[in-house]
């Protein structure tokens, strides 16, 4: 028979451990493990001319279906709002001239979040945030759950729905092979005829972006999209208007992954969650057994089995 005192002692210890581990979780906020010299791209939308060369270069580099460069001169596609899909990792959207604002062409692609929700959501680690910046994808690990597509705040990852046997999640990888292994700029950056895209160290690009804003305050909206949004992104955008006006959703300055990861990791930190759960469960099981049969802690196994049967019958009664 467990005494009241013993029970309190046990549950107190369990709760204590849990509280302690939770406290540790509380005390350590999310610290970015990324390399300070990580790379990024800066898109200056005020310079972009909407020629769609980047789309062609991207398709060429990533072996996506595409026509000749001339076919990308077709400006009619700009009349519709497009999103990257399984056959195009990047698209340019045109925001027509209004009485107040000039025309704006906005290139859309994976923003390569500093703390990506897609990577956080991926249960098999097929998506990975390189410490050097790019968010890369490994089709061999992918199980096709498409959680990443739901998790992405920018709605970027696409899926090869047409491919019945070996479908892949499709998204920009910042040309990781070129950028990380060869030190070359991504295909789109290299192609851009007006250098609206700049490739370099993210911190350097941020500095350049702020210089441009400082030097031409009339030309630019004073915020660099991607400096803080969703915890920062490797791809930065400069424009003459707030990002919400060219297709970027209104987002918090914290990665959506922080909330989910804190809950998940907090619960399981130091195995405290399961420990607490099973500790409490065992206590409750014992105490309920004692209550019904008036037996102590040290019963014989046969008796335990007997109890088990009784409990099962109880359960059935409940259902009935």
């Amino acid at each position: 028979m467990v005494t009241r005192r013993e029970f309190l002692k046990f549950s107190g210890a369990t709760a204590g451990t849990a509280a302690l581990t939770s406290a540790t979780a509380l005390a350590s906020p999310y610290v970015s493990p990324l390399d300070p010299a990580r790379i990024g791209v800066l898109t200056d939308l005020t310079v972009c001319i909407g020629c769609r060369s980047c789309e062609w270069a991207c398709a060429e580099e990533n072996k996506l279906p595409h026509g000749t460069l001339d076919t990308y001169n077709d400006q009619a596609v700009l009349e519709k709002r497009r999103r990257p899909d399984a056959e195009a990792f990047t698209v340019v959207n045109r925001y027509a001239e209004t009485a107040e604002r000039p025309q704006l062409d906005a290139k859309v692609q994976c923003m390569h979040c500093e703390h990506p929700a897609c990577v956080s959501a991926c249960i098999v680690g097929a998506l990975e945030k390189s410490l050097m910046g790019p968010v890369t994808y490994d089709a061999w690990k992918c199980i096709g759950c498409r959680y990443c597509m739901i998790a992405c705040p920018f709605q970027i990852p696409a899926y090869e729905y047409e491919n019945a046997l070996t479908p892949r999640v499709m998204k920009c990888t910042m040309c990781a092979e070129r950028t990380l292994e060869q030190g070359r700029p991504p295909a789109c950056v290299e192609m851009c005829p007006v250098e609206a895209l700049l490739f370099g160290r993210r911190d350097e690009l941020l500095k350049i972006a702020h210089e441009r804003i400082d030097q031409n305050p009339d030309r630019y909206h004073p915020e660099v999209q991607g400096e803080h949004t969703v915890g920062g992104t490797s791809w930065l955008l400069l424009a003459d208007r707030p990002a919400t006006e060219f297709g970027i959703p209104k987002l918090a300055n914290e990665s959506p992954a922080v909330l989910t990861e804190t809950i998940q990791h907090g619960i399981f930190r130091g195995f405290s969650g399961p420990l607490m759960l099973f500790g409490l469960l065992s206590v409750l099981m014992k105490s309920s057994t004692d209550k019904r049969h008036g037996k102590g802690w040290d019963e014989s196994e046969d008796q335990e089995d007997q109890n088990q049967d009784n409990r099962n019958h109880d359960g059935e009664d409940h259902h009935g």
Partner: protein
Amino acid sequence: MRSLRGVLIVLLCLAAAAATAQVADPAHKTPTASRPAAKAAAMQGECANCHSCTSPSHENPCLQSCRRHGAQFQGKHTTDEGPEIVIIDQLAELYGPVVFAHQLHARMSAMTGGCTNCHHYSPPTGKVPACRECHEPKRETANLRQPALKGAYHRQCINCHLDWSHENACGFCHIQAGDKTGTTEKPKSGAGSHDPTDIVGARHPLIKATPTYTYQTSEPTGPVVTFHHEDHVEQFGLSCVDCHRGDTCSSCHDTGGTRVKKRLDHVTTCGACHAERDCAFCHSSGSKPQFDHRVSTGWALEPFHKHVACATCHGKPEDFRKPSNTCTSCHIHWEVGSFDHAATGLKLSENHIDLECASCHLEMNFAVKPSCTDCHDEPMLPGKLPGTKVPRR
């Protein structure tokens, strides 16, 4: 069992609360805007022209990227100093060279901001530097603050053209290298080479001109002057700039970019080409018909030469009065039996029809009239022809 479920729910709620508490962590808050802008604005004098911070050091010079519209264009220059046309061909690879009408753009710029619109840097003395003197031909990732030459050119041209006419196609300025209609195979002059949308070396939406202008003059003998604009453009293959010199975009467009119909006045006079002609060439009592090769020269172009550009036979417009090329310049495969001599107005007799062309036209020189005595000794023969005269076809 019910109590167990309750405990579980409480437990999860606790964990969630702990998590939420962490989410509100101050480490993730947005830094407030205290940008170097404020500092730079506070700075006075010349330092701020180049540096973005108050105390630049060797390690961190905090150099600003060049100010495109800053007051860095120094020295006194006028629009007329610059070249008329600049051929931009340093980077020609995928596309052919760009013929940039510099003078035209300069005059247009003079209305808004002057040379500094494009030449954003110029030293106090000396020449205005060319783009390539600062901008490297190769794009270096090391220098992120200065676009490479290609980017610099494109930004200067396209960003302005985009504002002006929403034009961003490569072909607007470039001719694709290797293109059949491109520079490589394009005749230098003449109707075949003429692109009616080519305004001073740059493409432009087609301008529809009146085909014929009739002027009433005070000349007593021939008051009417007829000018067939269409002939000069379509047939003689003249470019707009051959006559319309000194016009700028502003002659037709206002500065807002809308199109205004306006007559171009700066015309090279007729006399510049037709100087040695007598008055009656232009002046007459009534309007004159369009140019007809049969009427003016006695040799009809129909049917085979109708679509041949004037320049193919005559060369430059100023040499139109006689052919500068011979028939065999084009008809290199002419041999016996493949040429119908009757087309020239002379049907060869049976005796002559099987002779080689060069037997009469010595060294295939068709400009010189053949002489019968080269073959025939009889003195009576030169009075005759080697066939019979027929109407020309």
